[in-house]
């Protein structure tokens, strides 16, 4: 209890005015001191004070106490645990808020909070009874004490507040291993079907209650279906059971259901919430990851009824089992589900530490029902776990490799990595093909290596000859232009001094072909160079002629012909020449998608252009396929076709022939420099550069590379699926206590170890496997209780311990402690069988009660903690979808494999951090597979699941909330998935009851949705709607066909059916 104001009180008393004091004195004769104090605090308003008094009196008033109730209170057993749970966090060993300490006799009794023998004078009780939200109410943190707890404290104080000097305080209940409790008497009660019922009935009797009647057969079979396989029964299955609703029959139905493959899918969902399973990393780089094989493993393990201890060991440490199987390794995906921050700039070690911490906290929540995370920064304030123990526990998990690391020293190079295991391929053909490709690849690699060896060996000789080539640098020779011709009618041109030609004229044609005749007698022509210049006379300064802003040109074709015939004939227009072939082209710059190489290919769709570099001169060299040696002066005719349009033509240019070695021109500078050096002066860097250059030129190596890439691509397409697994480092990391939880401040080093309050770990290894075995040791007081309690919660909506996530001091004590222990012991003794335990529960009379409630029962126990009725819960997100799809006959029961992509509105998977994420709806009926297969992206989860309290799975979730919102209504009414389900239901009903009356059809549809027949009111309402709709004006068509009117009317009926609260409630 946090009592801030106790120091101030005497001061306030002294400040009282005389008037108030006299009234107060008068009141003191009739009321106790605690009220008095309340009065002082509110002394400004006597009236308010008196009202408060009346209220407090009402609350304080205890009914006349029967002798049984006055039974002596045992301090150690009854009182101390209450104080420990509710007070010691702030008034205990570690903290003494307001100077108050309640965990030690002397301090507590001297504090003035407790007046032995006078509960009504005890400040402690006054504080406990203040209304919630009051400034002074205690406990300041957490729930108020129950009436029963207050009564115990009152009786203890009334009896003199005895606090023995020597006492044996019992351990908190959950840290003592459960023992099989003796059954309460009452086996002969006809209602009782199972020991469960005896425990429940015992408690009901204590409260003066009786169980509810059994649920109707229709509701019972539906409840069992939904609970065991997550899908509704068909009307046929319902009818068969209604015909014989015996205990034997329901047992055989249960036996059959737990064998269905859908069992594992339904029960995987809560487990995957615990495992924070998702298909993406989370955070800014929320890329998808392949870990779905782990999800499938969970489904399969549940279907196989894998004993829970083994289920645990394989998930925590399957990789460390002797000769671990593939399946056991896949199981370790449990802890690879941890979110991973791979945002550019994230620190790998920080990311790793966060993942390890997440693993510790998740393990604590799942197997120990304990919130360990408080101990990250400080010793747990109320549960018996220290910071050091936290980091000892962490040490078990600290020995896996980095799962996000930088590929280089660049912060942006951080990538998701960590062990990913190839899944064995169920398809032998693919496997064979893959190994064949791998063999080919290996062979090629060998060939390539030997080729590289060869190239490295002859490097010196090659360098010597290459040096000669480089020395023979290319020379350009401007060609003499004999004539120039363009197609523009108003154009003229000028021959400038530098040998270039400038087009003149303000009205250039859209498209143009320049024809140039030149004369030359050069030998050894390797190619031709075209220079393009800017000129002030051109629009905007050129080089293009078309537009002062967009000064581009597009050279669609560059061609050259060698004229051997009589010049006279040529003049007559017959070129009759020989077209020269080009092998390649290079240019100073080519526009994207307009590479210069396109300019010696014919066709107008390719060509050379230079946007956006309009401000530079440009050149292009067209390399001939063969060297051209001219013996005499010869005419060469060039054509520059520019067919793009909008006068994207060249304004000023020059043509030259190029001799010498063109290759030399392309030799990079560092190579040219190295080649000039004598061999003995080569630095290692030179040699490396030369080798790489030579390899780059080598056609054989190029061929190898091409084939290797080819094979790799083929292999990539055939690559087996992978999944994330845990792999232990050979050398364990050092673990240390982090000061204030900061990984950059490691303190005392620690060895792996488990908390002292719990069962000891046997000597031997202290690795993850040892931890896993310790978790499911029969001595572990928590694991079986925590586990059965979660399953109970899944069936009843809440656990016997309502704080399923917290079995510590602050958690709620079990409503039925013996029942919880009985279930835990049963579970372990039955070989940790989940199916056996579920069967035991669903065959109990407790489970099979009707779920209807009365006002009286609601007032008494609105949360059904006493179990005087059956469970009644809105389905969870995935089940709502599965149920609707099943009702509509759309559900595809295909199992396993990569996640599916159901319809979701556009734009949900937004571009984030420069990366956009594609969402492609799964084809055909794939999108109608069960919710457990729906892709889960942490940064943008499937919206209709979020609307029904599905979590983002950023962290382990023990308990989802269960809300009731308008967005849920909108989802069920308008989400295309549910619209399609409604339409499909309408079609299904009319197909299945083709010759039935409307009434029969509606009854059938109603039964598909709820398992029961409608009442007259319900049927009338639906038939009324149908008839109204038939009469209503259609929105779309002026005169709709009677068929489409019927379709619309049926769609409306089906929408009502799918949206009935009962349809998506397990009742």
């Amino acid at each position, binding site marked *: 209890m946090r009592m801030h104001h106790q120091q101030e009180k005497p001061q306030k008393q002294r400040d009282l005015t005389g008037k108030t004091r006299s009234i107060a004195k008068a009141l003191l004769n009739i009321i106790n001191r605690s009220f008095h104090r309340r009065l002082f605090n509110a002394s400004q308003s006597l009236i308010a004070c008196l009202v408060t008094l009346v209220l407090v009196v009402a609350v304080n008033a205890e009914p006349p106490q029967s002798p049984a109730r006055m039974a002596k209170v045992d301090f150690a057993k009854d009182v101390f645990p209450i104080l420990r749970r509710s007070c010691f966090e702030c008034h205990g060993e570690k903290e003494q808020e307001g100077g108050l300490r309640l965990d030690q006799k002397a301090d507590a009794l001297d504090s003035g909070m407790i007046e032995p023998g006078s509960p009504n004078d005890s400040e402690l009780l006054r504080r406990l009874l203040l209304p919630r939200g009051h400034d002074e109410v205690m406990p300041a943190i957490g729930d108020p004490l129950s009436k029963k707890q207050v009564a115990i404290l009152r009786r203890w104080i009334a009896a003199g507040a005895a606090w023995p000097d020597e006492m044996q305080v019992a351990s908190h209940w959950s840290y003592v291993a459960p023992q099989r409790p003796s059954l309460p008497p009452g086996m002969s009660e006809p209602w009782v079907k199972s020991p469960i019922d005896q425990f429940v009935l015992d408690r009901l009797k204590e409260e003066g209650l009786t169980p509810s009647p059994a649920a109707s057969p229709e509701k019972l079979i539906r409840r069992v279906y939904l609970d065991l396989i997550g899908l509704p029964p068909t009307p046929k299955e319902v009818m068969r059971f209604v015909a014989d609703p015996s205990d034997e029959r329901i047992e055989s139905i249960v036996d059959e259901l737990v064998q269905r493959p859908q069992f594992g899918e339904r029960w995987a969902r809560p487990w995957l919430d615990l495992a924070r399973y998702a298909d993406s990393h989370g955070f800014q780089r929320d890329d998808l990851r392949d870990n779905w094989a782990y999800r499938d493993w969970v489904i399969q393990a549940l279907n196989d009824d894998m004993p829970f201890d083994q289920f645990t060991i394989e998930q925590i440490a399957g990789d460390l089992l002797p000769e671990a199987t593939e399946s056991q390794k896949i199981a370790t995906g449990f802890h690879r589900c941890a979110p991973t921050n791979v945002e550019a700039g994230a620190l790998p070690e920080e990311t790793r530490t966060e993942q390890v911490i997440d693993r510790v906290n998740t393990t604590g929540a799942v197997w120990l029902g304990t919130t360990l995370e408080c101990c990250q920064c400080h010793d747990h304030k109320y549960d018996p776990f220290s910071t050091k123990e936290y980091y000892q526990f962490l040490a078990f998990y600290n020995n896996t490799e980095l799962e996000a690391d930088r590929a280089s020293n660049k912060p942006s190079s951080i990538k998701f990595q960590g062990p990913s295991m190839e899944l064995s391929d169920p398809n032998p053909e693919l496997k064979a093909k893959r190994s064949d490709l791998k063999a080919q690849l290996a062979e090629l690699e060998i060939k390539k290596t030997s080729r590289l060896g060869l190239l490295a060996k002859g490097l010196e000789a090659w360098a010597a000859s290459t040096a000669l080539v480089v020395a023979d640098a290319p020379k350009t020779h401007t060609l003499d232009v004999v004539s120039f011709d363009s197609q523009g009618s108003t154009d003229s041109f000028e021959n400038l001094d530098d040998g270039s030609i400038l087009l003149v004229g303000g009205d250039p044609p859209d498209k143009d072909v320049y024809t140039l005749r030149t004369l030359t007698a050069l030998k050894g022509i390797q190619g031709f160079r075209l220079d393009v210049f800017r000129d002030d006379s051109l629009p905007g300064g050129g080089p293009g002629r078309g537009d002062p802003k967009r000064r581009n040109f597009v050279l669609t074709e560059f061609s050259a012909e060698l004229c051997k015939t009589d010049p006279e004939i040529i003049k007559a227009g017959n070129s009759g020449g020989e077209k020269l072939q080009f092998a390649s082209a290079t240019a100073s710059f080519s526009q994207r998608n307009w590479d210069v190489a396109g300019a010696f290919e014919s066709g107008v769709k390719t060509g050379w252009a230079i946007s956006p570099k309009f401000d530079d001169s440009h050149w292009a060299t067209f390399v001939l396929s063969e060297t051209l040696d001219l013996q005499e002066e010869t005419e060469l005719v060039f054509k520059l076709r520019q067919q793009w349009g909008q006068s994207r033509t060249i304004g000023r240019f020059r043509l030259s022939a190029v001799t010498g070695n063109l290759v030399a021109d392309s030799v990079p500078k560092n190579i040219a420099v190295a080649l000039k050096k004598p061999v003995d002066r080569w630095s290692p860097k030179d040699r490396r550069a030369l080798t790489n250059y030579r390899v780059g030129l080598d056609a054989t190596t190029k061929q190898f590379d091409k084939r290797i890439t080819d094979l790799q691509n083929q292999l990539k397409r055939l690559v087996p699926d992978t999944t994330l697994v845990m792999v232990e480092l050979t050398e364990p990391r050092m673990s240390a206590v982090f000061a204030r939880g900061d990984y950059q401040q490691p303190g005392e080093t620690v060895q792996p170890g488990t908390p002292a309050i719990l069962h000891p770990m046997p000597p031997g290894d202290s690795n993850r496997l040892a931890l896993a075995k310790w978790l499911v040791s029969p001595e572990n007081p928590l694991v079986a209780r925590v586990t059965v309690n979660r399953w109970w919660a899944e069936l009843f909506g809440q656990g016997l311990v309502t704080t399923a996530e917290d079995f510590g001091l602050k958690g709620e004590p079990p409503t039925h402690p013996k029942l919880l222990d009985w279930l835990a012991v049963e579970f372990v003794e039955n070989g940790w069988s989940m199916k056996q335990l579920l069967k035991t529960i669903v065959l109990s009379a407790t489970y099979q009660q009707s779920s209807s409630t009365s006002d009286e029962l609601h007032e008494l126990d609105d949360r059904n903690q006493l179990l005087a009725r059956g469970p009644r819960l809105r389905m969870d997100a995935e089940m709502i979808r599965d149920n609707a799809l099943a009702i509509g006959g759309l559900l595809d029961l295909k199992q396993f494999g990569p996640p599916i992509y159901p319809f979701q509105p556009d734009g949900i998977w937004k571009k984030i951090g420069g990366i956009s994420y594609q969402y492609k709806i799964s084809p055909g009926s794939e999108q109608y597979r069960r919710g457990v297969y729906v892709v889960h992206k942490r940064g943008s989860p499937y919206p209709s699941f979020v609307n029904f309290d599905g979590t*983002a799975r950023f962290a382990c979730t023990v308990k989802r909330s269960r809300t009731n919102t308008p*967005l849920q209504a909108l989802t069920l009414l308008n989400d295309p998935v549910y619209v399609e389900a409604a339409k499909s239901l309408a079609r299904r009903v009319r197909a299945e009851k083709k010759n039935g009356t409307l009434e029969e059809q509606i009854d059938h549809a109603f039964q598909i949705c709820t398992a029961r027949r409608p009442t007259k009111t319900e049927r009338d309402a639906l038939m009324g709607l149908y008839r109204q709709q038939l009469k209503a004006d259609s929105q779309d068509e002026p005169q709709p066909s009677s068929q489409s009117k019927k379709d619309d009317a049926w769609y409306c009926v089906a929408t009502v059916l799918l949206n009935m609260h009962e349809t998506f409630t397990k009742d």
Partner: protein
Amino acid sequence: MTQPMDRRGFLNDVGIGFGGVALASILNDESFAAASNQNLAPRAKHVIYLHMIGAPSQLDLFDEKPELVKRHNEPCPPEVTKDRDFAFIGKTSTLAGSPWKFSKHGESGQSMSSLLPHLGEVADELAVIRSLHSEEINHAPAQMFLHSGYGRGGRPSLGAWVTYGLGSENKELPGYVVLLSGPPGGAGTSMWSTGFLPSKYQGIQFRADGDPVLFLSNPDGHSTDDRRRVLDTLATINQRQLKVTGDREIATRIQQYEMAYRMQTSVPDLMNIEGETTETLQLYGAQPGKASFANNCLLARRLVERGVRLIELYDSDWDHHGSIETKLPKKCKETDQPIAALIKDLKRRDLLKDTLIVWGSEFGRTPIQQGGDGKSKGIAGRDHHKDAFTMWLAGGGVKGGVSYGQTDDFGMDIVENGVHVHDLNATILHLLGLDHEKLTYRYQGREFRLTDVHGNVIRDILR
């Protein structure tokens, strides 16, 4: 605890009509307010939170550093970068002075750069905090930290805490609305998620494209009349079921379907800004039908008018590692006028006193340069900086014309009145009448708070 006294009475009356809209919350409001007495007087009824995703440079907008300008391009002294991590740059970068001129605005003389001419006009309304600091240096964790007090995800956002704490005022619109211009930040929907609080406290994104709220429109060919008939039939059946089973959830369910029906009108009405005057549209620079930050600012005012408690605007592309000299002016141009317009418009409608506006981001940017050659007159870019950055508050209980907190000559560290993210969140809750130490939720064995075990209200900026 005040007991909803007429529960039974309502249940008997449920068939009569749906007039009593507040009943839904009486029946099902698990909000903190419903369960406890509030003892702080609220100063603000609404919050408009303007989050510039990516982190604008405080040194080029609010935190003037003449020393940095003077020593532009000098190597950063090693003692300044000692023990400090940056996301991308090394510690050897050069100092980067702002290329923009700063001047004083308003009677209070708030210092702002030439990039914010419009905001300068309302300088006297702002409490500028130049001493914010955070603990996270990457976007997604820092965004989560700012909004949920925790950098790893899975915790409720400020908006969810507020909605949990105060419930919703409007029964036809959600209490917590999110508007985006550009893609969301790296933290995705976690910035407005409920974490472990019940999902009804989540922020609801109103979208500019498609349905403004997911699944708001009736399917094609299904008219409002059709829908009304469907809902009436549904209500008849649900009511019968309520009577038979006594399940109170059904009563709530009936109410929620009615609210959904009302939202089908109220949300499109809200989103349609065509009825605004030309003067107002011009004030914001908003254009009907065109998605923009300006439109979102105008929508924020409309949401406030309709009683929506918490409105968050997220604007993207503020992460200027490079080309800051072209990108930052562009972003300022898109946002400066609408933000100033929002303040002016709220003020003239007398709504500013009840509406707290918060402007800021997940962190700030470094006083040292990223990229560039360290020789040019200008700057190339700035890296993430969590140790000192600027946010401002205005309206709802906040003193205007206040400058709070100071950084050193480089703007690297805080020298006076540091404000941690937890302090900011404590202050926002305080202004809404919520004690950040008392607003708790028990989950997985722990009493959680938005401010963890930290947070001090910044009294000096309160009216």
